[in-house]
C-alpha cells in the first residue's frame, strides 16, 4: 500500500448503482478520488484528452458496466484498445456488471484489457481483496 490516494473511474448509466459504488469505495478505502460517467463516450473523451501526457503514477481503476446506451461496455473497450500504450498503461479495467450471462463472463475473460469480471453489486470483500492486499 502506498500512501497515494486511490483513483477510480466508474462508467455506468445507472446512477443508483453508481451511488452504491461510490459509497462502497469510500467506506472501504477511506479517501478516494472518484469520477463517474453515465455516458461512456464522455468517459472515453476524458481519458483520451486528460491522460495523453500524464506521468505514470499509480494506476487508475475503471469500473465499466456492460449494458449501456449509445456505447456498450464492449464498444467502450474496442475504442479504448485504439488508444496509445501510454494511456492504456495508466488504467486497470474491471467489468462491473449485473449480467449473469455466461457469454458475457467468458468474453470479459478473453479480453486482455480486462483485469476481471465483477458481478454487481460491488461489495467490500472484493474491494478489500483487490485494493488492500
Amino acid at each position, binding site marked *: 500500500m502506498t500512501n497515494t490516494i486511490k483513483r477510480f473511474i466508474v462508467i455506468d448509466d445507472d446512477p443508483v*448503482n453508481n*451511488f*452504491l459504488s461510490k459509497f*462502497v469505495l469510500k467506506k472501504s478505502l477511506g479517501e478516494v478520488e472518484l469520477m463517474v460517467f*453515465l455516458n461512456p463516450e464522455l468517459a472515453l473523451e476524458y481519458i483520451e484528452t486528460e491522460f495523453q501526457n500524464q506521468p505514470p503514477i499509480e494506476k487508475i481503476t475503471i469500473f465499466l458496466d456492460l449494458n449501456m*446506451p*449509445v456505447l456498450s461496455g464492449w464498444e467502450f473497450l474496442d475504442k479504448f484498445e485504439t488508444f496509445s500504450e501510454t494511456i492504456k498503461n495508466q488504467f486497470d479495467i474491471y467489468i462491473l456488471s*449485473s449480467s449473469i450471462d455466461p457469454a458475457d463472463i467468458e468474453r470479459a475473460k478473453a479480453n486482455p484489457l480486462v483485469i476481471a469480471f465483477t*458481478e*454487481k453489486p460491488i461489495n467490500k470483500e472484493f474491494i478489500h481483496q483487490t485494493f488492500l492486499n
Partner: protein
Amino acid sequence: MKKADKGNKTDALGNTNTKSTSLKQEKKKQATELEVAYKVIARQIEEKGKRAAELVQANIELAFQNEEKGKRAAELEIANKELIFQNDLKEKKAEELKLANRNLKKAEENLLQLNAELEEKVKKRSSQFSFISQVNQAIVLAEDIQTLFRNACSIALTIGKYKMAWIGAYDEDKKTISLIESSGIPDKDIPLFTKLPYKSNSPEESVLRTGKYFLSNNVEQTLKLKTRKQFAIKHNIRSFIVLPIKKSGNIYGTFNIYATENNFFEKEDVATLLEVSEDISFALDQFELTEKQEEAERQLQKSFAELETISNEQSTILNTLPASIALLDNKSNIVKVNSQWIQFGKENGLSENFPHVSTNYIEISEKSLGRDKKEGQQMAQGLRKILRGDLDYFSMEYPCDSPTERRWFRAEVKPFKTNVLSGAVVMHLNISERKKAENKEMKTLKALQHALNDINKIMDSSLDIICTINEEGKFVNVSSASERILGYTPKEMIGEKFIDFVLFKDVEKTKKAAEDILSGISLTLFENRYVHKKGGEVPLIWSAKWDGTDKIMYCIAKDATEKKRLQKALETERQRFYDLFTEAPSSMGILSGPNHVFVIVNPLYLQLIGKDNIIGKTVLEVLPEAADQGLIELLDNVYKTGITISASEMVMQLNVNGTGQLVDKYLNFMYQAHRTENDKIDGVLFFAVDVTEQVVLRQKIEESEAKLKEAQTLLQLSTWEINLGSNVSTWSDEFYAILGVTREEIKPSPEAFLSMIHPDDFELAKTQIEKTFETLEPGSYNARIQKKNGDIKYIYSEWKFELDTNGKPIRLYGILQDITEKIMADDEREKLVHELLQRNRALEQFTFILSHNLRAPITNVIGYTEFLQDDTLTSEEKTELMEGLASSASGLDTIIKDINSILQIKQEINDIKEIIYFSKILNDITINIRNSIEVHEVEMVSDFSEVDEIFSLKVYLHSIFYNLISNSIKYRKPNVKPRIEIKSKKENGKVILTFIDNGLGIDLKAKGDLVFGLYKRFHSHVEEKGMGLFMVKTQVEAMNGKISLKSEPNKGTEFTIVFDA
C-alpha cells in the same frame, strides 16, 4: 648442506695458553690493556653466539694476541733485566721496583684467572659449535627423517651433555604429541611420551601456539602434570627446553631436551639449541622437497619409459624404426629426448653434441627452410594449439628424404601433464616402409582394377544378368543388368542370399536346382521367377555352373518376361477368340463344302436349333425341316456366288423340342462366304440372332397399349389431352368437376383453361406451357384457379407428349389434381412455425431481460441492503442508502411491468380484430400527447387517402403509432422544428404505412442490428428504457406484418410497416 661448513673450522681451535713470567711495573698498563682486550673479546664472543666461524676467528685472533703478548712479556723481561743491571746501582729505586713487581705479579694472577674463565667459556662455545656441527653432519648424512631425529637426540646427549632428548610430532586433531625418536629415556618410559596430551598453557601447547621455544630452568616450579613431574624427579631432571620444529613454516613437532641441573640452559645454550632446531626444521623441508622432486622425476621417467615402450611396440607393429621422442615443457622447450631423437638429429646434420635439451622446438620448426618450410610451419602451428589446450592430438605426415633414400615420417603431438611438468610429447615415426608398401600396392591394385573394370564393363554391357554366387548362396558379384531386369542395383544384391529374391512359389524347385548345381550338374535353361523390387514376378531362364576350386557358382540369367508375355498373349488371344465365339450373343458357325457340313458352331446355335452333335453332319441332315423353307437354296447361293445374304425378323419354323412340332423362330441372320487363302470359296459363315422374344414382346405391348387407350376412354379420369394434329382438346368429367364448370358452359381449349387461372399465377402457367412446346419434354406446374363463386383452388398438373416415329408431337396429354387441402395444411403449419418462432424469440428476450435488466436493480437492492447492515453508518449515510434502496426497488418494479407488457402481446393476439381507421388512431394520439406536440412545436403531416382502414387489433396499432410518434419527438434534432409525416398506401394487396421524421436519425451501419432490440437506446440524453421499438416490432409481427427502417445520423428516420391486408 648449507650449514655443513660451519663446524669445519672447529679443529682450528687450539690452545690459548700464554705464559707470563715476569712482573714489571711498567707492564701494569699493558696488563690493564690486556684485561680490556680480553673483555672485548669475551663480549665479542658472547655477541657472536651461534656464528661459529667468526668466533673461531676471534679465538684464533685471541690466541694470536695472547702469543703476542707473551712475546712482548718476554721482551719486557729482557728489558727489565737490562734495567736491573743498569739500575743495580740505583738501589734507591730497587724497592720501588720490588713493589711494582709485586703489583705486576698480582696483575699476573688476575690475568691467569681471567684466562682460565675465558678458556672455560671458549670450551663451552666450542662444545656448542660441535653440537651444531654434529647435527648438521647428521642432517647431511641422514637418509631419512627418522635417522636424523635419532642422531640429533643422541648428539644432544653425547655432545650437548644433556640428560635426555626426544623429538615428538604434534597431532593437532587429537591435541597430543608423540615421541618419534629419543635418547637417554629408558625404554619403559617411552610410552609416557606417546600420544601425550598437551593442555593449554602446557609447554607443548605454548610452543605450538606461539612457535617459540619454551624454557624451564626449574622443573619443580614449571611442571604441573603429575606423571611428568614424577618422571622428572625420578630422573633428577631440573631444567628442560622445548624447541619448535617446523615443516614448511608450520609447527611440526618439538625437540625436547632435559638437563639435571637447575638453570642449566644459558642464553648461549638456548641460541645454539634454537639453531639446531632450525637446522632440523630446514632439513625436514629439504627432505620433503627432495622427495617431491624425486617423485616427479620418477613419474617423468615412468611416463617417458611408457612412451618409449609404446613407440617400440608401434614400431614393431608398423615395421618402422622406433620413434624419436621429445618431451617439451609448456613453452615448447625440449626437456628430454630419447636416443632415437639424437640419432635422428645426427642423420639430419646435427652434431653429436647438439644440445637438444632446452632448445625451443617451435622456434626450430619455424626456422625450417626450403622444402621443409611448409611442414615446419604446420608443426609449429599444431604444437601451439596443443600447448594452448585447443587440440588434444595433432599429427602430420611428411616426406623427409635422406641423401640415400626416400623417407616419410609421421609426427604425432600429444599434450603431456604431470604434477611437475606440463607440456607436450612430440614423436616422429619413420613410416617410409609403409608408404613404400602403399605405393607399390597402389600400382598392383591399379592394374588389377583396370582388368576388373574391363570385366565389369563386359559384364555390365550384357543384357542378361551375369552373376556369381558363393557356397552360402549369397551373390558375390552381379552385373548391372540386374537393375533393368529386377529393379535392384548390383550393390543391393551383392552379399544377399539369392533365394531371398526368388518368388515364393519357386523357392522349392530353385533350392533343388541349386543343390544339383552344387553337386556338379551344370544346368542350362532352368526357369524360375524372381520378385521385382517394385513387386511383380520376373520370369528368368538360368544357366549355371559350379566351380569347385573357386567355390563359386557362375550364373547367367535371361529375362524371360517377353517370351512369357508372348506365350501368354497368344493364349489370351486364343481364349478371347474362343470366349467371343462361345459367349457371343449371336449364333454362329462355319459350314464347309457344297453340302454345307457343320465344321464349328457355338453353343448358342445349338440352343437355337435344339440339336446336339452336329459337327460333321450336313445342314440337311441336321435340319431336315429347313429344307422346305428355302434354307439350302440360300446357302447354295452364297456358296456359289460369294454374295452375302442377310435378313431381319425372318420367321423359320424349327423342330426345337425334338418332338417334331415346329416352333416359330424370328431370326436376324447373315450368310457369308468363307474363303481359303487362295480366295476360293470353301464354305459358308453364318450368323444368326434369335429375336423371337423381342418380336413377341413388341406384339404384346402393342396389344396392351391399345387396351389402355380403351380403358382411359372408358374411365372418366381427370385427364386432358390435345390432339396436336387436329388441335382438338379433350377434358374428362373429373377435370370439369375440379374447375367447377360444366361442359355446356365451357368448351375445352387451352385458352379457356388459362382464363380460369388466378391472375397472379397466369404468367407462370403460360410460360411453363410455352416452354414445354419448345422442349417437348414432360412438364408440370402448380397454380391457383379462381372459381366463379370466388373460391380459390390450388391445382397441380402434369403432362407428356406423344411423339410419332419421326419424333414429331402428335398428342399432348396430362392429368389435373386438386391440391387445395394439402396447400391449406401447409399454410397452417407455416403459421404454427411462425408463431413458435415468435414465442421463442420472446423467450430469448425474456432471458436477456433476466440476465441484464432485471438483475441490475436486484443487484442494487442487494448492494444497498448489504450496506444498510453496517453498524458504523451515520444517519445521513443511512438515509442516502435508504433512498438508493427505494429507487432500486422502483426500478425493479418498472422492469417487471415491462416484462408483463411484453408477455401480454401473446394474449392479446387472440383478442377480437376490428376495422381500425388510421386517421382516428392518429387523432387520438395527437390529443393524448398534445402537450408534448405543442411544447416542441411538432409539425404533423398525414395522408391516409389511399387506404385508411385495416382489419386488425386496435391496441397494437395504437401502441405502434404512439411509440413511433413519441420516438420521433424524443429524438428530434435540437434547434430544428420536428416534422412527422405519416402516410398509407396499398400495394399488391398489402397495406403499407410510412413514418418519416427529420430527427437525429440512427447510425444504421453501427447499430442497425440492434434497433429493435429490447432495452436498446441510441442516445444518452433521453430518459427512457429502450422498450418502444422492441414493442413496435413485436406487435407488428404479431399482426403478421413487417417493419423496416431507413435512417442516417442527423437526416431523420423513415419506418415502413407492411401489413397483409
